[in-house]
């Protein structure tokens, strides 16, 4: 939980929800973006995710590096991804989602 997993923002939900849909290893789920709102988080951005919260925006290269690091950790990453994927409330992908 202390080491963040990289996730890509695929949809920003209504601003008052301060939430976004992000994707990790092909699994999508809603997370909080309260902490990175002021940094101007947008669709396509990579974020470091801790326990369902985007804690910082990172660039694509850093995301790739972080992913390698997490995969290298093996069990730590598997547990994080497993937890991330568990019990995900079903998400209807909106057709209006735009890629930037």
């Amino acid at each position, binding site marked *: *939980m202390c080491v963040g997993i990289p996730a890509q923002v695929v949809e920003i939900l209504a601003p008052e929800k301060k939430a976004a849909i992000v994707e990790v290893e092909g699994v999508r789920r809603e997370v909080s973006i309260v902490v990175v709102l002021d940094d101007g988080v947008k669709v396509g951005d990579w974020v470091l995710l801790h326990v369902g919260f985007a804690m910082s925006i990172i660039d694509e290269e850093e995301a790739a590096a972080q992913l390698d690091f997490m995969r290298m950790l093996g069990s730590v990453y598997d547990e994080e991804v497993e937890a991330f994927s568990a019990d995900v409330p079903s998400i209807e992908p909106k057709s209006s989602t735009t890629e930037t």
Partner: protein
Amino acid sequence: MKFVTEFRDPDAAKFLIAEIAELAAEQPARKFMEVCGGHTHAIYRHGIESLLPDSIEMVHGPGCPVCVIPMGRVDDAIAIASQDGVTMCCFGDMMRVPGGNSTLLEAKANGADVRVVYSPLDALAIAEREPDRNVVFLAVGFETTAPSTAITAMQARERDVSNFSIFCNHVTIVPPMKAILDSPGMQLDGFLGPGHVSTVIGTGPYEFVSREYGLPLVTAGFEPVDILQGVAMLLHQLADGRAEVENQYKRVVRDAGNNSALKILSEVFELRPHFEWRGLGFIAQSALTLRTEYAQWDAEKLFEVPGVRVADPKACQCGEVLKGAIRPWECKVFGTACTPETPIGTCMVSSEGACAAYFNYGRFRARPRIPVTAT
């Protein structure tokens, strides 16, 4: 992709290893502490110690959030979980942490409603979905995860969720570093500062290391080249007679930290006068508790807890490991009585712990040499 190749370039690693060797040759032996469990993993996994000269020793610090939770707090969590109508939600890591008599996993087997959640927001959602349950979130973690709990508390308040509360065990990273520096016989020459905690708090809070203790600190990333560069930066400072806070991990850590997260933290939490750390004892102002405005969501105010201090088992040397006084394999029960399957101490429970890291990589795998080629 330029940046990646820069910090993963095998040539860069070779260059840094040579630079470190050169710097180390002109200095007395040095002992650096890496504060963060993620660094400990990377160091073992990549065999970084074997790349460093013999005169440089890396010791592991207290930066594993599950490892520092004392037994008495686990017992308190079990006591809350065992009450009628209570649903205890926690991270998977916490399930097997030994308390005085049992674990949350055992409490669950005995009928307590203990559920693993990924996020505190999931615990809040359970409370809203099941209004007849008293849902308690067992909050652990450093400043990396504390903002998440704080935001969850704010949402519970906004939405007036009255059957939700937080059993807060959040801790802060700076006080244990001070405690380690003050502990007798501890001779450190510098710190490799934590990565992701620093994205929240920035580098300012570490200034005391240079100001009060005259030691250098470099926050570093998790790639092998990051760690090597962090070590080289520490050695440069020592060679120059400098003691400063430097940031090797600028691509993620801003010196000022994250202002939104810091504001949220101070809105919801205040410092506790004292908190017990496993192996380190009570440390003043080292942990967070909910402010009185949030008393309604504070499990410690809502439930009777034993609040009894439980001494660690005699065989357990987690305290020594967390202080960097001994290495994991020097603990007498390491790998025999204490394994990830049957942990005696917390450092073996959490996959972020030093003992688990060493168990997984150090002992049973040949140390890979300079595995810095991009995969």
